[in-house]
């Protein structure tokens, strides 16, 4: 964790960004983008998550590389579970 103390204005900015993105994602869901709806929703969710992780959880300002390795590993492992399981389901009808 960084000892760097951020200004409260900085946190308020992130907060506003998160609220805006929330409204946007809810609003966009009413627009027909076909399969892109899901993509957009997940992209926005990921941006919000990144804002929380990097700024509220101070990961952007930490000098501790291990923290970032732990985060990336967790996401990667989840991805392994999802991807390799889907590999079965997505190819069943091909057999």
């Amino acid at each position, binding site marked *: 964790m960084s000892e760097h103390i951020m200004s409260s204005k900085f946190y308020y900015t992130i907060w506003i960004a998160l609220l805006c993105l*929330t409204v946007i994602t809810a609003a966009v869901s009413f627009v*027909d983008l076909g399969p892109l709806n899901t993509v957009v929703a997940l992209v*926005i969710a990921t941006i919000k*998550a990144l804002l929380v*992780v990097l700024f*509220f959880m101070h990961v952007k300002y930490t000098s501790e590389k*291990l923290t970032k390795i*732990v985060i990336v590993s967790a*996401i990667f492992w*989840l991805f392994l579970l999802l991807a390799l399981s889907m590999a079965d389901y997505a190819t069943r009808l091909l057999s």
Partner: protein
Amino acid sequence: MSDSPIAVEQHGPELLHHFVDAEQQRDAASLGMWLFLATEVMFFGGMFCAYLIYRYWYYNEFAAGSRSLDIYLGTINTAVLICSSLTVALGVRAAQMGKRKLLVVLLLLTIVFGFAFLAIKGVEWYDKYKEHHIPGNAFNVDDLVKDYPQIHIDPRHEQIYFSLYFAMTGLHALHMIIGVGIFMFLTYYAWKGRYTPKYYTPIEMGGLYWHFVDIVWIYLFPLLYLIDRKPLR
């Protein structure tokens, strides 16, 4: 002293005997909490996996179920959690600067937001109960079948959506309740003056946990509420 098995709290600001110095103690706590959050990612991840597969199989039912959720309450709840993350982040900052009273206020606000989230969630669940959308013997989705004549809704598959809805939001709510409990302890000790600019690790660690629970919801919201809100033709 906190009995919560998950919180990585220390006995006050004194150095614990097995650590060499305060920095080692703090670094250990931090790594410990991040590793714990990694386990939580995998814990929720199992349900995300189930969700992914059944949404792939039963998209129509998932879409219909999603539409039956109240998007306004869901959006408000998302905003509530975002506000609570703000108060947590500002709280850590207050601790860093030694502002005890401000810290206590922010922690209390966080708890209030937490309760607000849980209350709204309770309302949503009650709505589902009234609509007979809770899986079990009283489960009945004739209303959804009627609302979407253009797509075939299989009530059995619809039940899978709602099972996952309750399992995922339920597990999330349980984590919120634990979080509120942790923050009550933190508020008490903050009020007692235990946290100083030299030692505020429990606030930081509690904050990390709280932000994580927020992030889970950041993903649950679009996945459960926003599957398909396109205007029906």
